[in-house]
């Protein structure tokens, strides 16, 4: 049967038979890099048009409808526009850091792709501390935003960057705690083991109310971590023009924009892996017939379906809720999410010890 893992195995075998091991590794790395860049480009195009259509329909509008059939090529036209624009560097800016920041943002997004299992046995790097790696690397994102804000030599940029720093540092706590509740239940930091532990049911069903609470907190926290509305204080169009990327134009701006969307994809992929079972098909207890039908749907479709469902959820939040003020934002984290998630992880631990989950 056609699957990603068969293709990758076939290519690997063919390369091993043709070249020596060092060359095989180099070529495989190049292929993986090209695939990641290709995936980034496709994600950027798809997510931008998805966001614009979702926002339009939620605001009783039509959305883009001129370029291509039903406006589906609009993001391609936007990309061409951004490519031919001048990438200006302001006179007072720190030129090296200013030009470095968008690349750090992209690099972080690329690094985060490594441990994600896109399909059954299809993963770039099966490392045994996947969850820790993801939560550690995603914090580097804030450095690129801080560099961009500081190097721009602009008050708006600096304020946006500082807000973003406060926001990411505080929301990482509750995101981490809600991820930990799954680690406690599955007993492993390896993303593959976590997926395998959900073979008889996803954690969001197996874990009852505590895991549902953890899932809600996770979604809120990652929305804040990716700097999207209702937590887009780092950009805050009405107060800070565009926050940390006020001074960026052309392709450098596009890299930030792309990094934002790729980060949304990555956090949704992590959420799908932890709570919704990654590429695991939907199984109900002992209904053999139903489970067999579900097994026929390829694992990659399960993974991307779940991820895009979560992306839709985050877009739905963005176009429904008004933006929080900075004090409300920190109140929400330190007075509500953090105490609730701390209490919740105790509950989950108790549940895991006593075996109260299915």
């Amino acid at each position: 049967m056609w699957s990603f893992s068969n293709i990758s195995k076939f290519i690997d075998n063919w390369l091993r038979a043709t070249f020596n091991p060092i060359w095989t590794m180099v070529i495989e790395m190049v292929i993986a890099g090209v695939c990641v860049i290709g995936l980034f480009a496709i994600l950027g195009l798809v997510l931008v048009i998805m966001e614009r259509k979702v926002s339009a329909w939620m605001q009783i509008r039509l959305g883009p409808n001129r370029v291509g059939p039903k406006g589906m090529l609009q993001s391609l036209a936007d990309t061409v526009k951004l490519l031919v624009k001048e990438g200006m560097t302001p006179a007072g800016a720190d030129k090296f850091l200013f030009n470095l920041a968008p690349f750090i943002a992209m690099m972080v997004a690329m690094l985060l792709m490594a441990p994600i299992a896109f399909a059954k046995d299809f993963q770039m790097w099966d490392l045994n501390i996947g969850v820790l790696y993801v939560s550690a690397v995603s914090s580097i994102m804030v450095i690129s935003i801080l560099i961009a804000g500081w190097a721009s030599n602009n008050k708006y940029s600096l304020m946006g960057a500082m807000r973003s720093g406060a926001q990411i540092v505080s929301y990482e706590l509750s995101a981490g705690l809600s991820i930990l509740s799954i680690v406690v239940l599955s007993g492993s930091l390896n993303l593959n083991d976590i997926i395998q532990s959900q073979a008889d049911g996803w954690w969001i069903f197996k874990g009852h109310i505590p895991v549902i609470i953890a899932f809600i907190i996770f979604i809120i926290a990652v929305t804040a971590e990716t700097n999207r509305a209702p937590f887009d204080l780092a950009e805050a169009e009405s107060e800070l023009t565009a926050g940390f990327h006020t001074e960026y134009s052309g392709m450098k701006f596009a890299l930030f924009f792309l990094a934002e969307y790729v980060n949304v994809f990555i956090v949704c992929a992590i959420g799908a892996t932890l709570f919704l079972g990654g590429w695991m098909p939907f199984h109900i207890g002992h209904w053999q017939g139903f489970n067999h039908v579900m097994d026929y749907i390829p694992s990659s479709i399960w993974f991307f379906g779940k991820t895009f469902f979560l992306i839709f959820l985050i877009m739905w939040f963005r176009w429904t809720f008004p933006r929080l003020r900075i004090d409300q934002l920190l109140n929400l984290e330190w007075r509500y999410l953090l105490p609730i998630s701390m209490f919740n992880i105790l509950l989950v631990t108790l549940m895991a010890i006593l075996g109260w989950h299915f």
Partner: protein
Amino acid sequence: MFIVKYIKEVFSGLKSLAIGLRLTLYYFTHHKEIITQQYPDNRETLNLPERFKGEVVMLHDENNEHACTGCTACELACPNGTIKIITKFDIATDGKKKKALDKFVYHLELCTMCNLCIVACPTDAIKMAQTFEHSVYDRSELTKILNKPGSEIREGVE
């Protein structure tokens, strides 16, 4: 008690968020609610809302008669001098002199479509039209005389 209030706050917050989410999901799934119109494409079938205000026009019937007495109520009501009424004296049938409308000068370029003149008019002689394509090459074309040439006041309108 503090903890009860805290939990109540959390649940009422979640409930209000859910209400908002339900509305946007309704709009997302019900495309018939979309109010945007493909304007230059559907020029013939354009469906403007009833209360849309495009410009002030004077109503004339088939005998080329209008209902304007020249009372200047609209001119006084206008906040930015858009309307200028020029009156004349007609000789009525019984030989008496009577004040009547000569020219209703309307400066479209000054108008803010506030509707105050229509509210002020005692005889409902003017109303808001739904035309909105007002672009012209010369500004003087925007100064309009609303009463048609040769028109007269309708019989019985005081």
